[in-house]
C-alpha cells in the first residue's frame, strides 16, 4: 500500500528533467528511423530500372507450333503460337483438376479463374486464343522450364520436376502457381507490348 502510494506519488510528479529525457530519447529514435529508411530503400529497383519495364514484339513471324523466348525485365517471357490441338487440350481440362485455380493474369482481376480463355492472349483486347504469352520462370524457384515437355505436353521444369500444361498451368510438382501472364497490350494486330 505504502509502496504503491509512493509510486503513484512519484508518477504524479514528473520533473522537467524527466520530460526532457523522454523527449530527447524519442526524437533520437524517430530521427534514427528516418535516417535508416533511405539506406533500406536504396536497394529497391532504381528509377532507370523501372523505366526499362516495357518492350514491343512483332509476333507475326511466329508460325503455328513455334515458340520464342524474349527477355523482359531481366528474365524470360515465352510467346507461343499454339496449335489447335494444344488449345483444345487446354480447354478440355476441368477447373477442379487444377492445383492452382487462379488465372495469374496481370491483365485480369486477381480472382479470375484459370480457364484457358483467361490465360491466353484472348483475354486481352485484340489478342487471339492461339497466342500464349507468359513469364518463363518456374513459380517454384525460378528456373526456366523446357517447352513441349512433361506429362501434360506443355512445359517441364528440370530443376525440381514441375509439370505445366499447354495453358502454362501447374499440374504436378512442387511449383505452387501457374506461370503468370505479364501486363500486355496489342499495339497493332501483330505487335504486342509487354509491360
Amino acid at each position, binding site marked *: 500500500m505504502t509502496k504503491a502510494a509512493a509510486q503513484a506519488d512519484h508518477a504524479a510528479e514528473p520533473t522537467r528533467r524527466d520530460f526532457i529525457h523522454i523527449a530527447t530519447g524519442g526524437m533520437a529514435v524517430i530521427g534514427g528511423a528516418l535516417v535508416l529508411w533511405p539506406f533500406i530503400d536504396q536497394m529497391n*529497383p*532504381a528509377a532507370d530500372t523501372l523505366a526499362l519495364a516495357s518492350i514491343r514484339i512483332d509476333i507475326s513471324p511466329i508460325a503455328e507450333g513455334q515458340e520464342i523466348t524474349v527477355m523482359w525485365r531481366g528474365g524470360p517471357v515465352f510467346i507461343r503460337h499454339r496449335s489447335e490441338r494444344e488449345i483444345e487440350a487446354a480447354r478440355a481440362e476441368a477447373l477442379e483438376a487444377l492445383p492452382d485455380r487462379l488465372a495469374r493474369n496481370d491483365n485480369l482481376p486477381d480472382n479470375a479463374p484459370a480457364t484457358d480463355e483467361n490465360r491466353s492472349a484472348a483475354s486481352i483486347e485484340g489478342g487471339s486464343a492461339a497466342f500464349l504469352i507468359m513469364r518463363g520462370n518456374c513459380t517454384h524457384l525460378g528456373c526456366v522450364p523446357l517447352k513441349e515437355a512433361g506429362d501434360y505436353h506443355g512445359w517441364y521444369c*528440370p530443376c525440381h520436376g514441375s509439370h505445366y500444361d499447354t495453358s502454362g498451368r501447374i499440374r504436378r510438382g512442387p511449383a505452387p502457381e501457374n506461370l503468370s501472364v505479364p501486363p500486355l497490350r496489342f499495339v497493332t494486330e501483330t505487335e504486342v507490348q509487354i509491360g
Partner: protein
Amino acid sequence: MSGPSTYEPKTPFTRWLDARLPIVRLGWDSFVDFPTPRNLNYWWTFGGILAVFLMIQIITGIVLAMHYVPHVDYAFDSVERIRRDVNYGWLIQAMHANGASFMFLAVYIHMFRGLYYGSYKQPRELLWILGVVIYILMMAAAFMGYVLPWGQMSYWGAMVITNLIGALPLVGDAIREWLWGGFSVGNATLNRFFSLHYLIPFVIAGVVILHIWALHVPGNGNPDGVEVKGKGDTLPFHPYYTVKDAFAIVVFLILFAGFVFFAPNVLGHADNFIEADPLITPAHIVPEWYLLPFYAILRAVPDKLGGVLLMFGAIGVLFVLPWLDTSKVRSMRYRPLARWFFVFFVIICLLLGWCGAENPDDLVFKLGYDAAGNETGFSFLWLARIGTAYYFAYFLIILPLLGFIEKPKERPASIEAAVLGDAAPKPAE
C-alpha cells in the same frame, strides 16, 4: 579462469606503453600465459586453423577485388582474366575459391568437436551461440562470393536461393525484389553482392573477437569435460598450444596446397565455366558441397514454404541446443548412449550431403520394376526424408531425453587425474 595478469613490462618503452595502452598485456594474457587445460587433443586445433583461413580469405579477397569487375558484362571475363593473365592470379584465385571450402571443412570439424565434447553447455552457451552466428555469416559470405564469377551456377544458384525468400507469405515478393534491386537477378544484384561479400569477412572478424573473448572468460573446455580446478590442470598457452596449433595448421595447409596446386577446380562445378544466361537453366542445379545437407533438407518436403522453414530451422535449432541437451555430463566420452547417437548423427549429415548432390527422384538402390517397366526402389528423396527426420530428432527428442535415461560412466576427479591416472597427486584432504 583468467586470473590476475602476470605480464611485467621489461623495457622503458613497454612500461610507457603499458600505462597508456596495455595492448601487449592483452596479448600476453590471452595467448602467452593463458592457462589452458593440459589434456586438449588435436580436435581443439581447428579454432586456430579457422583463424588462419579467415586471414587467407581476407588477404586473397582484397587482392582479387583489385582485378575483379562487378558488372554482368565483365564479371565472368574478369575472373577468367585473373585466372589466365594476372600475375599469380591463378594461384590467388585458387587459394580464395578452395580456401572457402577448407574453411567450411574446418568449421564443420570444429562444430562436431563442440557437439561431441559438449562445448555448448553451461557456462559456454554464449560462446556456442556466437559460433553459430559466425557460421551463418560464413554461409552468407560463401553464397554471395559464389555469385561473383557470374557463371551459370552462380546465376542460377542466386536465382534459386533468392526465390526461397519469395516463399514467405505476404512480404516474400517485396523482399525478393528488394534483394534483387530489379525484377530478376541482374546487375544491381551482382553489385550489392560484391559489396556485401567484401563487408562480411570483417564482420566475421569482429564476431570472432567476441567468440574468443567469450572463450577466455570460462576458459577452454576439454575432452574430459571436467572443469579446471587447480594449477595442475593447466598449461600456459605458449609454448604448449601455440606449437600444437602451429603443427596442425601446417598439416592442414599441406592438404590445402594439394588442392590449390594439383586440383584447383575439383570442388567447383563445370557449369560455372559457362557465362550466366538468364534464359537457360542448367539441367542440374547444385550448391557447393558445404551447403548440400541443407539443400537436401529443403527438397525433402513437398511444400515450398515448408521446405524453406525446415532448412532455416535446421540451423536455428543450433541456437537453442544448450538448453535442449539435458545431460549434466559434458563430454560424450562418459556418455555411453549419447556417443552412438552422435556417431549416427555425423553419418546422417554426410548422407544428407549425398542426397543434396543427387537428383531426388533417382534411386539409391533398386528393388524391382513397376507395371510400366520402370525401375522402382528406394529414392534419394526418401533417404533425405529419413535423414531430415533424424537430424531434427537428434536435437529435439534424443538429446533432451537422454539426459534422463542415460547412466553416465564415472568421470575423473580432475583433468590432472584424467591425464596422469594413479600418478596424479592426491587432493589434500
